[in-house]
């Protein structure tokens, strides 16, 4: 163990670190609440949109859209939703690990897929690993994320899918379960053939005869990309809530660890202080004996 001064210095440094981590914990807690509110507010909008699409599709059995039909998968787009910054525990590492394992299992060559990174961490991960990237710059996932922020990316992959350049779009993200639990999930964004929220057959309560302006097929053509982007936005909101929850948990344990460390260091400091006093006393007694 070092000198008293060294220990005192370490105690002060650790206390300062714990103050920062505590502040970060509190900031993340308040951001998490906000993110949860956004998820709750957005859910009815997605439900309404899937309801509208269900109505359009069920109006005509022959009505279909490329995004509703699966085709042979030659090329896949992987959208990885990560955070922009670190200090969020295993939040990013978990997604990257799951993604790497999945890609290794599914693909033999890098030419079979392309990565669309959402968040600076995902972008630098894909770049580091040498994966083919959809955009040459990162897309920021801000706390108050808006459609406009990732429009450049969504336009690009929707265009690629509709032109037949890619045949499948899969999203990797952290699903928010609760504050303590976030689960890495992958979801096929397009084609939407197995999406349980869209009903392709008419169901009870949907038998109102609707007019479509200008026609059901045109409405569907316009609605499908909108729906896909909405689904992605929902996942980004979930990922954002997971990020704040992960950061909150990480900062909480960092604060606890710092407190434990301060306690241990305080003990060492007291011991060192006592040792110094004992040495001083021994010196004084020794000196006094020598005088006598």
């Amino acid at each position, binding site marked *: 163990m070092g000198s008293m001064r060294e220990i005192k210095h370490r105690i002060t440094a650790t206390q300062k670190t714990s103050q920062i981590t505590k502040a970060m914990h509190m900031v993340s807690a308040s951001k998490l609440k906000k993110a949860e509110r956004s998820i709750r507010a957005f859910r009815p909008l997605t439900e309404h949109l899937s309801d*509208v699409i269900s109505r359009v599709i069920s109006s005509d059995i022959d009505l279909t859209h490329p995004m509703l039909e699966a085709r042979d998968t030659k090329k896949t787009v992987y959208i990885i939703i990560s955070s922009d910054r670190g200090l969020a525990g295993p939040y990013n590492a978990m997604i990257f690990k799951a993604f790497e394992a999945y890609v290794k299992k599914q693909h033999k060559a890098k030419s079979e897929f392309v990565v669309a990174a959402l968040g600076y961490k995902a972008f630098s991960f894909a770049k580091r690993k040498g994966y083919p990237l959809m955009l040459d710059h990162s897309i920021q996932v801000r706390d108050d994320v808006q459609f406009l922020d990732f429009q450049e990316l969504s336009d690009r992959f929707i265009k690629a899918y509709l032109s037949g350049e890619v045949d499948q779009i899969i999203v990797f993200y952290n699903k928010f379960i609760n504050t303590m639990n976030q689960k890495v999930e992958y979801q096929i964004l397009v084609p939407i053939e197995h999406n349980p929220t869209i009903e392709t057959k008419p169901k009870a309560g949907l038998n109102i005869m609707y007019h479509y302006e200008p026609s059901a097929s045109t409405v569907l053509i316009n609605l499908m990309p909108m729906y896909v982007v909405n689904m992605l936005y929902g996942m980004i909101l979930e990922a954002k809530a997971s990020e704040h929850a992960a950061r909150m948990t990480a900062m909480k344990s960092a604060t606890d660890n710092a407190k434990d460390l301060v306690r241990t260091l305080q003990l060492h400091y007291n011991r060192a202080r006592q040792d110094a006093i004992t040495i001083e006393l021994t010196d004084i007694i020794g000196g006094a004996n020598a005088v006598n």
Partner: protein
Amino acid sequence: MHLIVTTPQGVLYNETVDYVVVSSKNNGDFALLKNHAPLISAIDVGYLKLVKENQQLFTVIINGTLEHQDNVITVIAQEAHVGLNKDSAMDHLNQVRQSRLDENRRRNIDFLKAEKELKKNIREARPSRRS
């Protein structure tokens, strides 16, 4: 008839109106009056003209759906903005979008700049440590 315009940020407009004119790039113009038949439409970029007691309001919409049923019009939009005339509403929305894009670009540059600076500092610190 009742009109509700909702965006992910919350409910933008929730009022009773006399009639609504829907104008969009992809579908052209049409009006919805009281007791209109149930209708569904999609708007890519366009606006809604809301008329109430000879007063007009315009809501600019970017990527939205419109559903009319039982004299209730529900509009779900990715982005929307209300203004006194369509040009001012559109201008304002474009301004907000542009400043957001600029801010995103600036943040991206800041990140890259910080990363480059950090790498440079690490490179410079290494030889000094050896010496």
